[in-house]
């Protein structure tokens, strides 16, 4: 296997070091390493991060291969600096059996530009009525540890309690999409001043917060691991903070877009459009006060990690009236830049903090042993080289994702992934897919 010598990368803590990659591992970190057989990469000015891990990716395969496939989605992930993603279960068919999760896992092994860890559905068909075969998925080749009906809330308290209890048998975690269904019937965007002006049915913060509060209490009652998907409101941050203060086993994620965009974009987008469904997402974009609370929560560790909720959609599903448009935006290829802008450039997180929230913590929650490890000799060589000084307008036409539903196209964002290594093998070099 080829060797790579990364010269002069800023490693976490700020020191500049050389990193030697050999046999899929980090062989050595030091100053002035000599390795004549190695291919040398000049990383002056670049930051070396442990390969990023996403807990929440929609790869759309099987079922909507026109929007994304395991191959295209993991190419997008590699370009975004990711070395592992969790593939959400709301595919067609739903990933609610060992067969489907193994299919996705095999696709990942065969075509993946990063590791693919399937998420199993909590309930059959995401219907919220009957538990899926959680144990069979856990014991399958896919080795599932994260279970989620994402896209749907497990709103039945008994089903949620049983799921939380059941996954304890194999150290699983239930990742809840918190959305009280009755409070969000027909909801189109965050309920507040903007929704009132636009005449779009509001999606109240309390619909998310009430489910999170209930689930924290349930998880505490049965002593299980709960993970809260895409927290979007200031109140949700408060509830997770309270649950953690009790010592309960609750973790939470936030998306880059909820750290960066507000519901005001729906009224006057930065590109001057109103009612542009590119901003239609579930949960909805909230207010500046929510964004501030989410940033503070991520900075102080209340929110454990960043997850993209990469949700690819075909053009025709977005080029329509707001009410008819699909919910979601893609995020893998812009996540690091958006988080840099929201958290690092604002002084809320340093690079070590960012690595913790985008690699270490998500790997821990997903129980991925080989990822989210500090850069040290003997670790698998999962490494992202990132240029934080780079600045350019986002050009979505160059994306590896099959879909283009990004709200950032045409906007200037900082940073660029220069190289991504998956177990010593480059998946991206000089910003281009290998």
């Amino acid at each position: 296997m080829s060797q790579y010598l990364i010269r002069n990368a800023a490693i976490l803590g700020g020191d500049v070091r050389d990193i030697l990659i050999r046999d899929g591992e980090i062989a050595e970190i030091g100053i002035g390493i000599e390795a004549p057989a190695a291919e040398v990469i000049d990383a002056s000015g670049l930051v070396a991060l442990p390969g990023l891990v996403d807990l929440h990716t929609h790869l759309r395969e099987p079922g909507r291969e026109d929007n994304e496939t395991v191959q295209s989605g993991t190419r997008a992930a590699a370009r975004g600096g990711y070395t592992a993603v969790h593939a959400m279960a709301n595919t067609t068919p739903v990933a609610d059996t060992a067969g489907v999760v193994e299919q996705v896992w095999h696709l990942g092994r065969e075509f993946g530009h990063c590791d693919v860890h399937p998420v199993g559905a909590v309930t059959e068909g995401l219907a919220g009525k009957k538990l899926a075969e959680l144990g069979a998925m856990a014991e399958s080749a896919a080795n599932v540890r994260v279970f989620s009906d994402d896209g749907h809330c497990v709103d039945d308290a008994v089903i949620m309690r049983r799921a939380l209890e059941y996954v304890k048998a194999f150290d699983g975690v239930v990742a809840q999409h918190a959305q009280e269904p009755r409070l969000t019937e027909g909801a189109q965007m965050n309920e507040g001043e903007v929704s009132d002006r636009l005449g779009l049915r509001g999606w109240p913060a309390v619909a998310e917060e009430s489910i999170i509060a209930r689930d924290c209490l349930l998880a505490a009652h049965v002593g299980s691991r709960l993970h809260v998907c895409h927290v979007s409101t200031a109140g949700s941050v408060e509830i997770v903070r309270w649950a953690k203060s009790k010592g309960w086993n609750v973790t939470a994620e936030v998306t880059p877009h909820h750290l960066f965009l507000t519901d005001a974009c729906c009224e006057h987008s930065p590109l001057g459009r109103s009612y542009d469904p590119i901003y239609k997402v579930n949960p909805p974009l909230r207010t500046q006060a929510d964004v501030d609370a989410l940033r503070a929560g991520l900075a102080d560790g209340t929110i454990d990690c960043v997850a993209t909720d990469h949700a690819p959609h075909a053009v025709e599903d977005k080029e329509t009236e707001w009410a008819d448009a699909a919910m979601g935006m893609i995020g893998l290829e812009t996540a690091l830049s958006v988080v840099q802008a929201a958290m690092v450039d604002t002084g809320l997180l340093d690079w070590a903090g960012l690595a913790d929230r985008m690699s270490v913590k998500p790997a821990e929650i997903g129980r991925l042993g080989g990822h989210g490890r500090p850069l040290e000799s003997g670790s698998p060589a999962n490494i992202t080289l990132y240029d934080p000084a780079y600045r350019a307008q986002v050009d979505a036409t160059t994306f590896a994702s099959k879909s283009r539903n990004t709200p950032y196209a045409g906007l200037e964002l900082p940073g660029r992934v220069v190289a991504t290594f998956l177990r010593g093998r480059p998946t991206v070099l000089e910003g281009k897919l290998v």
Partner: protein
Amino acid sequence: MKRHLISAKDLTRDDALLVLDTAEELARVSGRSVKKLPTLRGLTVVNLFFEDSTRTRISFEAAAKRLSADVINFSAKGSSVSKGESLKDTALTLEAMGADAVVIRHGASGAPYRLADWINGNVINAGDGTHEHPTQALLDAYTMRRHLGSLDGRKITIVGDVLHSRVARSNVLLLSTLGAEVTLVAPPTLLPVSVGTWPCKVSYDLDSVLAKSDAVMMLRVQRERMNAAYFPTVREYSRRYGLSAERYSHLPEHAIVMHPGPMNRGVEIAAEVADSARSTIVEQVGNGVSVRMAVLYLLLGGAQPAIGADK
């Protein structure tokens, strides 16, 4: 004035007064034996209706025809457009047909804004979802001005389902621009959560507001709101928020009673009040044509320097 009329916020005070003054002038034409002006000859106005509203469509059609425009009525309801063919495809078709202005009525809030992104012609909002209906607000203001004179300092009360009402939304914006003092009256369940930030007052008690009102506008209440628990029963709604003959008697002498139609007689308004001398409900319909003529003329005629320029 902007290139499109999608929201009542698109109108400055001067724009709005210009529309009302122009409507007054054009109304005189309607009194003549030959009701046509050559102003928009050679221009094409498309009425693009995704939602049934014979009244509004005919009003726009009459307005365009009196200005000699060619009118194409495009009823998208029940056609291939309603499923499968997207709004964008329809927009591109209209563009190809050379539409100079598109009057759009759509069940989805914001559809006119999407249309405006895709076509070059002027877009006029004839009602979108629960968002706005600016020409209705203009005709309401026009009607009020005819009866009350200047709207500065006038007290206007709007009663009913404000939450789902595009008419109320446009009226609050336009009437506050014109200097009127608007009070919304409704059960709290039918008011937007952020109504406190709107340029108006809010009350839950109709009786306390009526005696000080120069105009009372009753909104239609959909019976299906009852199933969604917005209020307990139609009877209770009617008792607390309906304009009964008894309540009508507490209005000041000069006050007028308005309704954008269609009415639920006996629910939000008593039949005898709807038919009373101070009801402007029928007159509103006629005024609609004059106001829509003014809007088309100002957006498409290009004669007025304040109008027709890009924002």
